[in-house]
């Protein structure tokens, strides 16, 4: 069987999600039986512009990034957005809290004029995306599932219920019972409540469920006496670029009307 050529690319990110692949251990050997990696900056020096599947980590934060991702999209038959930065904007989205000019000067100081910058966008906010692997970092069992789906030409459905569903099945004591705020109730499942299983809270790195119950969630915060700002700040950490989706949705709805 001819191996599928896979290329890994990174935009604005820490490349930690790609490191997850390098850290897969024995399962990586099975993956490599199936694919030929032609681009992967973290683990090899070779480069190629001939690939079938592009695995893209990072968010798009510069005009140069826009051009680069468009070129990748034009070559790749399948594009996988990989990791929170790519799928929802991730921590880079925090940039959108500031005036663009201010934040550019703050980061690049005297050299700011060399760096053209745009508000942070997730990959699908620039080019069409075929598969999403959410998470910061990605949950490797889910990545493997997505990879298998992509190679079989099947869709992968990202779970659209809350992290609580998986957390409960893992029989964790609810963070709210411990008096700790957790974003599980509004965050998409699919990570097998990885963080909570290990004693941490859910930070919302997989993005929000599509239909969060706003009124109900607000009641819950009131009940546990959690100020709305806490949740907003926590959500801000990964989900700021969601505003781009909401703006796009609003625009589409207006056009329909």
């Amino acid at each position, binding site marked *: 069987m001819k191996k599928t050529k896979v290329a890994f690319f990174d935009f604005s990110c820490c490349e930690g999600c790609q490191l997850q692949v390098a850290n897969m251990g024995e*399962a990586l050997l*099975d*993956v490599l*039986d*199936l694919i030929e990696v032609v681009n992967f900056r973290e683990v090899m020096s070779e480069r190629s512009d001939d690939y079938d599947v592009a695995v893209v980590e990072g968010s798009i934060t510069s005009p140069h990034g826009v051009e680069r991702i468009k070129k990748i999209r034009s070559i790749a038959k399948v594009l996988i957005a990989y990791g929170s930065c790519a799928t929802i904007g991730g921590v880079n989205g925090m940039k959108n809290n500031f005036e663009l000019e201010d934040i550019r000067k703050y980061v690049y100081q005297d050299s700011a004029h060399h760096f053209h910058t745009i508000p942070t966008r997730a990959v699908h906010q620039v080019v069409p995306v075929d598969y999403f692997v959410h998470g910061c970092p990605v949950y490797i069992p889910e990545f*493997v*599932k997505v990879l*298998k789906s992509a*190679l*079989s030409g099947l869709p992968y*459905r990202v*779970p*659209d*219920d*809350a992290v*609580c*569903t998986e957390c*409960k*099945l893992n*029989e*964790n*004591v*609810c963070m*709210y*019972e*411990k008096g700790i705020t957790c974003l*599980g*109730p*509004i965050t998409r499942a699919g990570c097998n409540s990885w963080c909570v299983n290990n004693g941490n809270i859910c930070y919302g790195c997989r993005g929000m*469920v*599509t*239909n*969060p*119950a706003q*009124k*109900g*969630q607000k*009641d*819950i915060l009131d*009940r546990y006496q959690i100020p709305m700002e806490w949740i907003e700040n926590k959500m801000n950490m990964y989900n700021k670029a969601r505003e781009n989706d909401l703006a796009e949705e609003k625009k589409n709805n207006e056009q329909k009307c």
Partner: protein
Amino acid sequence: MDKYVVLKKSDFNGFIKSLSKTQKVMAPVAKGNNNYAFEEVSSGEEISISHIPTILPPKKYFMPQRETILAFSKKEHEWKPILEKEPLVVFGIHTCDLEGIQLLNKVFTTPPQDTNYINRMNDITTIGLECNDYCDEYASCCVMNNHLPNSGYDLFFTELSNDFMVHILTEKGEKITGGTPLFSEAQSAHHKALEQLRSKKKELFKDEVVVQNNELKELFARTVHSAVWEDIQNRCVACGNCTNVCPTCYCFDIKDDINLDLNTGVRIRSWDSCQNETFAKVAGGENFREERGSRQRHRYMRKFNYSIGKFNKYFCTGCGRCSRTCMAKINLKETINSLAGEKK
């Protein structure tokens, strides 16, 4: 078989220790914040004799959260069924959960029978444990008639002042008590103490809602369009906690997981929930229960209305888990009382 024996409390630790050497023993252990979970134990000291219902019911041993049921090979067009089971003793099951297990047994032994479930069921020894006190404000075991033992166990333990009084109901149970010299025959003083405890319970355990057990079906049948469901619609966040912790919810999803050779793979069954956004979503994007309120109503109807038609049983055991775990504090007893408070 109807026989009572006693085990000295001081011998309990040794009993669990020796039992755990012959088979796996699962029992409630403390997880902090007044939460408990059934886990494997190897001594009596690890067990919380006094506990409120565990996060997940012992259902998880009969119907695991995730279960491989089939292995297949695409190219060869071959498949073989897989049965994951091992002999288990589950100790410390409260009467509410014993009822939950009996209801699930009914579901899975009614045709079309579930072979995997039945095989596991036959391999599990159940040891009940009496609630001497009322657990908390969420329980409604009394109105559901599950606060006293109603069968469904191999052995049943009741804590008395110095001993455990043990009711032997099955041969499986007798094998355990007969396999060790720790158990002795119950004396009349023990029987008297048990009788006293049970009559004290009649004072402690009172019907928790304003309607009687036999009125519940009619109540839910006539309140399908109640405003109570609208209120719940505004409160529920569809986290699925209520169904995941329920001892009688048995909905599941089945997915195929192909191996990296893209040829062989396994079929996995996992718990599903009618509260999840996608549960009633079908091809084309239509969602038959888009509203969270209608999903909650469905859950209640499955417990108090539809189950009567299908199994002639309420599928609520009164364990109180759904109310205890609900982030939005949707409370089963309050829902019943609100529905009952509406004009007929």
